[in-house]
């Protein structure tokens, strides 16, 4: 915070009208807005959030309760834009509601990753020595398992369900996050502003949370944005394997999993949720790429 506070002070000195602040976040934001593809990604994300929030208003039908067996397997039409599934439910409505699951899983699993990763990473980087040794060996053990297999194992152990997915996908990512934070914390713990805080008598927790971590935010943001898209992919894969949210919950992965048996006769059952996944992952990747370009100091020209 020290750093940014200093900059805020300098910002106040300058006349407001110039509208050229030195706040690195604002600078980054401006640079981001100049990146057309990143903005495109951002639009996709905003669009998806809009859909997720307003799904009940946007959906022409209820995704679960509005079933009608006599209208099963209808191809796309004016009445059902994306067609209907095997029990006559509107696929459009189910895809719209599915965005809620996907985005929730993306965010919730990142929250799990962040909380475990930041805590352990900061402890390891700050205290070094034995703490570091133990935490980093744990992280290495985690890394020895292929992430997705580990998530499957967790899901099978706890039993399939939406909360299982949050936890399983969040848990498998912590080692990478911890390593990232550890590196950053090690970098800053010897820096002058931390020395200053320490000489003023600040406690360890204050130094970690108030001084060091705020300065590590850039890589965390990049990694989280990129992580959301892989979490969404992983959720779809888990649901595809029947380990995600259970029927009748509409999730893109389970819709595709189920639609697969009708792929020859009713391809729209698998195409539309598939496209939704593609669009979401594409949006987050574009935005994440853009963020990295502007936030990662190594990428600065």
């Amino acid at each position: 915070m020290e750093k940014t506070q200093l900059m805020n002070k300098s910002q106040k000195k300058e006349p407001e009208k110039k509208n050229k602040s030195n706040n690195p976040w604002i600078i980054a934001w401006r640079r981001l807005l100049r990146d057309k593809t990143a903005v495109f990604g951002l639009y996709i994300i905003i669009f998806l959030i809009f859909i997720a929030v307003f799904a009940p208003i946007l959906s022409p039908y209820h995704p679960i309760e509005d079933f009608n067996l006599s209208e099963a397997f209808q191809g796309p039409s004016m009445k059902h834009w994306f067609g209907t599934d095997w029990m006559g439910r509107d696929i459009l409505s189910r895809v719209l509601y599915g965005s809620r699951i996907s985005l929730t899983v993306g965010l919730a699993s990142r929250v799990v990753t962040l909380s475990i990763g930041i805590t352990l990473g900061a402890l390891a980087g700050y205290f070094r020595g034995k703490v570091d040794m133990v935490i980093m060996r744990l992280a290495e053990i985690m890394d020895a398992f292929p992430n997705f297999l580990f998530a499957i194992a967790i899901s099978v152990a706890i039993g399939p369900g939406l909360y299982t997915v949050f936890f399983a996908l969040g848990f498998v990512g912590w080692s990478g996050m911890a390593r990232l934070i550890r590196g950053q914390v090690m970098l800053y713990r010897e820096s002058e502003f931390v020395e200053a805080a320490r000489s003023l008598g600040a406690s360890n927790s204050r130094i970690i949370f108030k001084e060091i971590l705020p300065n590590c935010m850039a890589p965390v943001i990049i990694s989280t944005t990129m992580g959301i898209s892989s979490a969404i992919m992983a959720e779809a894969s888990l649901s595809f394997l029947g380990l995600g949210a259970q029927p009748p919950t509409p999730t893109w992965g389970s819709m595709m999993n189920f639609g697969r048996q009708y792929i020859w006769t009713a391809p729209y059952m698998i195409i539309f949720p598939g496209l939704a996944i593609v669009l979401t992952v594409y949006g987050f990747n574009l935005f994440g790429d853009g963020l990295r370009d502007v936030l990662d100091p190594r990428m600065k020209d």
Partner: protein
Amino acid sequence: MVKRKNKIYTALILLLVLALVFSGCGKSNEPSKEAGKTSTESAEKATTNETESSSGEPKYGGIFRSYLGNDLKTLDPAFATAEREGKMVSLLYDSLVKFDVNGKVIPSLAKSWETPDDSTLIFHLVDNAKFHNGNPFTAQDVKYSFERILDPEVGSPRTWVFEKVKGAKDFMEGKSDSVEGIEVSDDYTVKITLEQPFAPFLSMLGMPAAHIVDKNEIEKYPDQKDYAFNPVGTGPFKFVEYSNGDKFVIEANEDYFSGRPYIDGVNYRIIQDESTAVAEFEAGNLDELDIPTADIDRLKNNPAYAPYILTSNTFWNFYIGLTFNKEPFNDIRVRKAFCYAIDREAIINTVKRNAGVVSNGPIPPGLDGYREGLNPYPYNIDKAKELLAEAGYSEENPCSFELWHSDSKTNVALLEPIQAMLNQAGFKAKLVAMEWNSYKAAVRAGEAQAFYLSWGADYPDAENYLYPLFHSSMSGGGGNETRYNNPEFDKIIEQAQRTSDYDERIKLYQKAEDITIEDAARLWLYLSKEWLLYRPEVKGAKIYRIFNADKLLDIWLDR
């Protein structure tokens, strides 16, 4: 800068792909609608249950490539209760009698039999049968195999097959060393005496549990469970190897007593995913395909496949069992509400189109005792709501329960609309998918509140759909997973078993059936229709009405 350009290109390519996909799906819709129109015509054409075998003399040789939809738990006749295990037992072992295509009892290891009175059967055995290890088959093996099923130390779930034999109860209780009613007259004659007349007994001898094992082989294994995958029988095929999730291989028994099978062996792969099986068949890697419901229309309308499709109604009766001693289904009002809440007509006619017909009671059409026009629980959502309200449930306090099923897409396709209908009526049903073997074990142990299963005829008699499923002594592994217990039912079915007058017996079956329907212990959903597809070079394949009747002796390969 280079990077930017790349991103724009990817965006463009993506748009192009989207455009292609969208235009593609618009077109592909039309033929599928066309297909829907013509489906009824070809359904009429495809009513055969035998592939043509007229083109030339049967040839010997060739490996038949098939698959199993799940792992096998055992190949020991004493424990084979699942359909696929029973089928495999029939290939490896023989019983005294077997069934023809229509379910009629025909000779097998017994070349003939006589019935001096209503409760005595004398079997004359073939004298040229040998076990796969070379040991000759004799009457002693029959006695050993049958007593083994009753032996409490073995713990077979099929003791009821032989319980009616004289002295069986004493043997099971340890009061005698052998079963009085199974007498070995000489090496090739067995006399079986029953406690009282019991007409279905002869056909029960075709069940997996009545297949003949070799004492020497069983006794090799201190723990009987170890015998499960070291089977040695007299059957037309010998065991080669089995590995879970991978394959099951058998080879022709050259010395089979009634002549070796045409094919040299069968390679069963274990393919759990139905779509994978379809893809494998279409790629030419399988000779046989049990067509999944989702693909029936498509395959039967494909001229390349249509001539090689066999179809037949089966005796498989699918139901949802409601566990009697578990909340919430210990209340008859809740069970009845459950039955009224489901529009079976609508579901079966859409989801199970081509693959099933609505079932209204345990006794299936094709067996004496079946009554047309029986429809005890027509769809009536208001009545369901009323009954639930009476039982003390309301919108704030819905009747919630878990409906367990073995994990497959076909099951989910059927159960999801059922779940939706239940929820409309004021239930709160949760579907729980489980792996088949653990599912079966949990259901048997009575852990499920409600479960989806089926029952197929072990022998063609209506009694087979009543006694094992509903008699209080059959709780658990016997067949009465719902823990149904009604003394009145027990009394009537026991009386029916004793009755030798045929018409009288059928009347008692129907009376017993009515009681089970009134108690709503199971909701009968549908009777399945089987669709099998073969490669053109497969000749002589048939659909047998009894599930374990096909010993693969007719099938031959023209390649």
